[in-house]
């Protein structure tokens, strides 16, 4: 069950350059880090095993059956990984470290730098 937060529903196609756009909603700022995991909608079956195992109850099941869970409490994620480890479909979900948590490494032979 979904309901809209405002009385208007998006109907018009976006055309920002011409002064018109999708309906604009009154949303608060998102919490950060805002997306502890990323789902691949093409692989995820919406089985909700990750919702079951999560240590912090970060997700809720998607109201649309078969769709990936919704991330409801992103800032409570502990970045522990069981949601990924126990997912039966490889690639359906992966950890998305916050930008300020990305580490770097150096290839010894070439001196090239890489990062997460």
């Amino acid at each position, binding site marked *: *069950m979904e309901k809209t937060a405002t009385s208007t529903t998006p109907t018009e196609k976006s055309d920002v350059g011409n002064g018109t756009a999708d309906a604009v909603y*009154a949303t608060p700022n998102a919490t*950060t880090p805002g997306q502890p995991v990323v789902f691949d909608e093409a692989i995820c079956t919406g089985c909700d095993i990750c919702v079951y195992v999560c240590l912090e109850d970060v997700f809720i099941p998607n109201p649309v059956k078969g769709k990936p869970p*919704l*991330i409801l409490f992103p800032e409570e994620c502990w970045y522990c990984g*069981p949601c990924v480890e*126990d997912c039966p479909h490889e690639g359906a979900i992966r950890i998305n470290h916050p930008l300020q948590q990305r580490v770097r490494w150096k290839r010894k032979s070439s001196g090239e730098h*890489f990062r997460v």
Partner: protein
Amino acid sequence: MTMFHDKGRIHNWPYTVRYGNEQRVETDVLVLGGGIAGVWAAIAAARCGARVVIMEKAATVRSGAGGAGVDHWQWAADNPASGVSPEDLTEALIENQGGYRNGISTYIQCASAYETLVEMERMGGKVRDTDGEFRGAEFRDDASKLLFAYDYTNRFVIRVWGADYKPLLRKACKRLGVRILDRTAATGLLTSGGQHGGRVVGATGVNCRTGAFVVVKAAAVILATSRPQRIWTFSSELRGLSTFRPPSDAGNGYAMAWRIGAKLTMMEKSMRSAFGSAYSFPAYGSGNAINTWYPCNIIDANGKAVPWVDCNGRLLESVSERCRPAEGQKFFIMGGGSSSLPHPGLKQYLGPKPIPDLEQRMLRGEFSPPFYADLTSMPDSERRVIWGLMVGNEGKTRIPVMKTYMQSGFDPDKDMLQTYDFLRGSGMREPVVPQERTFGESGVCGGLLVDWDLMSNVPGLFGAGDLVFGGQDHSHAAATGRYAGARAALFARRQAAGELCAEQIAREKQRVYAPLAKQGARSLDWKELNAGIARVMQNYCSEPKNDELLRLAQDWLMDIEENEAPLAAADNPHKLMRTLDVLDILTCAKIITEACLARHASSTHLHFNRIDFPSLDPPEWHKWITLRKGSRGTEIDDMPIAFWGGLERNYRPRHRENLEAMGKK
């Protein structure tokens, strides 16, 4: 899109809400917290023939600090290859903390960690290098096929494949008929006739998805809810809730025990935090020379190796020497960090580490930052055991570090991982400010005072794991959980169930649901409440301390309790759980402040600096301070340092009785 704030649409709460709805359960042994200690306690109690219920805030399959894994099975002095006896290791661990470490739980760990691990193996856990992956490695004992860490001569820390242990333990609980109430946060303990300090007869809980109320009647209750966090540091914007242990570990057990009159001890100890900081990196996910990464080579930006030294300051030539005791040293306890943090560990137990004056030498131009952990130059078996067994099984590393980094292209055979801990030349990340403190995210910290049955002063209330002012280790939680489970089952067998008090339950129900009613003109979110408490502690209960500061902390916390805490509002069952957590964090902060006021001397080992009592560790203050909530205010008392008496003498008969009782099923 999979976010809640998808184009302004909000969703209905997905679970049926049943605020106030009451579920009644009856059992012999009730375990609060289904983390590592909790599941081991449940298994042991069930083996003794008791009916067992676990109440767990998250989902038992992975919950707790060790749910995602473990790689070091600490202090297993009872393993067949150990060069140190349980007695000697226990005494060393206690001495290394200046006496301030629970000798009872530490001895249980040192004397039965391996025995407990063998049970883990029977439940399907991988414990030995049976396929010979590390054949020929210095850290492998060929007779037992066990792999060791740190001190390869004395061999009492075992490297294990622990990432799958928790689901296996849950399966064992199910097999033994343990009833598991997941997503149920314990909120309060119930006493016989509702009497303060009276025998424990059960506990209440609230479902974090439906909001339903649960009342469990039990003959014995085991607290296994770990330690409080977020007392000094709170940020929800940098890295989750920025806790080292899972955010669900919020110290509820301390607050619940306090409310019914149980004694707590060592609550005055807190430390500068290297781990719980919002500014730290994924745990064990940056280059390092400690813990999981011990004894990794560290090199500077030009490839120059950082030398290692032993406790005598002697330069060590080889990687192998980093895993051997120094001349004149019988054995060593861990090692690695070249931290300049105040660390009172004794020299005779200090392990090898990178040179402690690296920072000065870097500033003189001898080394050039940034530094890297260089696995590529490590001996083959050491590289494979670090980036493989260890990073693959340490809690929170298999997926967030190993899998995620390798998907981004990291190759341990070719790449060097940057270290941020060494950016300032120190092997351990230092807090940005001293106020960045922790009570129990890591290290030995205060907790529930227990006796040789792991029972508190309140009859029927047992404790295990991180909350019994001893170890902070997985094997400590497992061994004490198992021991407490058996003791509680035996207690339950001998005592008839007590009587619940309807009035006590009604009062608790009112307390639990109060935040739902606060939707008035002014309300407060749990996060702001947590941040406010943390600020008080940073300012007035940090470094240094004196009477004036601590009294200000008390006044402020009292103010918050009277004025802001009642405004805390929740609009769904999940936020209700988080709000109740913060109210317990407030209780813990108050207990900590009282404990700090009660100790009239400074102490290195307690990281306790009272400028109005500067004398350091004077003999007359070498004792435990205990606190309990009495019927007329806080009662403060003390206990002699080694109050537990003879280790072996007290342990052996109980241990034998436990084994006999567990053999029944």
